[in-house]
């Protein structure tokens, strides 16, 4: 029994199990406490409301996984820039939304390229580089317009309100896209050389290089993916807001980092699991839902709870890592003595 538990803690999926358990507990708590909480639609709403954050979190998780201080602080600003660009393009030009959307995706990719280029080729700290592009993008957004710009394009509005019925419930287009992104990212990270390369450079960049991986290319791609996801998240965000505004997506990068970490991604890189990070987003969403059902608490309580959770998860990661090291030392010792380990 103890051995089972010890192995469980040492397993790389341990964080994921804990996050899953926490989600179930929170959702269970809500269901027991509030009438009407336990319904499929409340569950689906978590995806609908958080679709932009899920997409952005997937992107940022790639950068964290790639290690070497990997982070992308520019995502929130890119979301804002994307919304604003869409709004301004549709206000001032006659371009079809189907042209505008690829255009803003290109902007996201461009920002990712800039980030990746400076980080890989000039060996600059991701924190600083992406902080720079964050300011750049916020600034550009304000240049386009200081005020909120509404999106009134009919075609675009239809897109935003598209939803699919599942039984009695429905799910929005944005949520569907978020799910597709999650599935694709999970597959890429698990079943492609590129994906495994991301883990490898996050685990030990030097080793990865010696093993013949194209470290720089992988790192560059990671930031491009993050930029792309941020822009895609921005599109999903604009479907919810139907406007562009300089303060859109403010602090979203922090929510994304928090979700990723609560979902089991290690800030050191090399360890993490996309479905886990989705759970991280959902946990935040569930807390918010509980608070709105409760009715009297301020929404800021979400932040407080998330803050506490974050600390707990970081501590847990440290303990788990420690436990793993201990297990390893035990093994090393017993093999050093050439004696079988006592049970």
């Amino acid at each position, binding site marked *: 029994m103890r051995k089972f538990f010890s192995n469980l803690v*040492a397993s*790389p999926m341990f964080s994921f199990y804990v996050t899953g358990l926490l989600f179930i507990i929170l959702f269970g708590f809500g269901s027991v406490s509030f009438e009407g909480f336990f319904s499929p639609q409340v569950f689906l709403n978590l995806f609908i409301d958080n679709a932009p954050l899920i997409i952005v979190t997937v992107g940022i998780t790639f950068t964290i996984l790639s290690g070497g201080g990997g982070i992308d602080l520019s995502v929130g600003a890119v979301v804002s820039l994307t919304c604003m660009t869409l709004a301004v393009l549709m206000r001032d030009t006659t371009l079809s939304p189907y042209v505008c959307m690829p255009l803003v995706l290109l902007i996201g990719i461009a920002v990712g390229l800039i980030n990746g280029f400076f980080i890989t080729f000039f060996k600059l700290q991701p924190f600083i580089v992406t902080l720079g592009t964050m300011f750049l993008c916020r600034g550009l957004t304000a240049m386009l317009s200081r005020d909120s710009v509404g999106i009134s394009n009919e075609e675009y509005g239809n897109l935003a309100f598209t939803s699919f019925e599942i039984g009695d419930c429905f799910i929005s287009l944005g949520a569907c896209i978020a799910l597709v992104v999650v599935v694709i990212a999970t*597959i890429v990270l*698990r*079943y*492609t*050389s590129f994906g*495994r*390369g991301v*883990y*490898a450079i*996050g*685990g*030990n960049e*030097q*080793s*990865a*290089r*010696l*093993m*013949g*991986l*194209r470290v720089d290319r992988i790192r560059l791609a990671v930031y491009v993916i993050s930029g792309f996801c941020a822009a895609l998240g921005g599109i999903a965000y604009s479907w919810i807001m139907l406007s562009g505004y300089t303060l859109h997506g403010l602090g979203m990068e922090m929510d994304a980092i928090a979700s990723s970490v609560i979902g089991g991604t290690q800030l050191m890189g*090399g*360890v993490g699991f996309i479905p886990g990070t989705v759970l991280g987003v959902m946990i935040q969403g569930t807390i918010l839902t509980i608070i709105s059902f409760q009715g009297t608490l301020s929404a800021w309580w979400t932040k407080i709870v998330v803050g506490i959770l974050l600390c707990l998860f970081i501590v847990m990661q440290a303990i788990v890592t420690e436990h*793993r090291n201990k*297990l*390893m030392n035990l*093994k*090393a*010792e017993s*093999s*050093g*003595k*050439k004696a079988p380990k006592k049970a």
Partner: protein
Amino acid sequence: MQEKNDDYILHMKNIDMFFPGVKALKDATFNLKKGEIHSLMGENGAGKSTLVKVLTGVYQKTNGTIEYDGRLIEPKTPLESQQIGISTVYQEVNLCANLTVAENIYIGREPRGKLGQIDWATMNANAKKLLHEEMGIDIDVTKVLNFYPVAMQQMIAIARAVDTQCRILILDEPTSSLSDKETERLFAIMRKLKAQGISIIFISHFLEQIYTICDRVTILRDGVYIGEYDLKDLPRIQLISKMMGKEVREDDIESNVDKSVPEETDVIAFDHVTVPGKVKDLTMNIKKGEVIGLGGLLGSGRTEIAETMFGIMQKTNGTIKIDGTEVSVKSPMDMMMKRIAFCPEDRKVQGIIGDLSVRENIILAMQAKAGMFKHMPRSKQNELADYYIKLLRIKVSDREQLIKNLSGGNQQKVIIARWLATEPNLLILDEPTRGIDVGTKTEIEGLAVKLAKENRMSVVFISGEMGEMVRTCSRVLIIRDHEKITELNGEEISTAHIMQAIAGDYHGHA
């Protein structure tokens, strides 16, 4: 060129390689025949790993040519060298601890399924089979690598390297963490590959292993090519002397000490002490009032023994007795309390704190021993500092001078003073004279002898310079491959004997 060129797979010529401030390779040469096992020998820092990394594209040479299989190559990345058939196990473990064992073996060349996706099932099965058949180990390959001890990781790295189709296999000190049985396994694999015509570059500090498995050897010293030899024509003593750059002369006796070993009690005694991978089953004793030397090549394990004595490394087996009573040691602090002092090898890294004054550096160890918060009156500090500055004749303008502004020799004296201030019974000096001018060197040697003879202190003297040991020590333990080979006593101690003992040709009388 006299030899037939097509006997050779590789010629590296006139290779120069700079690191900032260090010229790691100077006009180095390396020639590798097809289907041979070729050793690259040299002391630590001789440039062996650097030569390998230049070949595999990790570092870029500044000069020279590499001719591989009849054509000139300029590898820019490890990937390029892999693609042309050079497979390498680097000295530092080069795997990713967060990936599974199977992935570590196959990353970059994973088996693919129908859709081009990584086929995990096949990968795991292949990995299991490979480890079982080649290395004789059965482990769960789906566990992450850092679940396994270093020796196992080493075997996995070797498995990865031998599994790729290659023409040259490079093994840079692969056996340093392996047991005898695992080493045998590795040798079996190497022989098999050699029979298939693959050339192997094998780097190891273990002379036994070199003579067992290798055909030829290239010797490097300080980045310079010394020569290449057939091992069967090269006696061990010659190999050692070429690595160290010292000719062996039988009349090389330069003693200036009273060589009598004092008949006194043991200050410290090791009984079958083992530190995995660092110290092998060491039994020895140090008597009160003697200067005892630890001789051996760089990397032979001398420093590790000193570190075990000082509690930096912990034994897993055996007993350590101090003044006749067994002790359990958990940290250097325990040993300081038992009045043992240790001046480390690399004073820049481990010893001096450059921005503190000479006085502060001297009282540092005492302060640590007394407890960080116990205040020592300034007048006492001054008194102590002045006493040692005078005793050791440290050349300073005054005791408040910053230590970083002193010459190397004087810095070293400050470190010694720091430890003397703790009034130890046993003083360990690890390479105390490296990089120090001749005058100061003689002074430090003299000091060691004086402390032993006059103050009845025991001194452990570690030095790569044999003349120095001959001048100071009344007993020398010869260390090779982390193991005590023999002891030399009194008049036996001479440069020639020490070198022979390191080579394994001299067994003393102890």
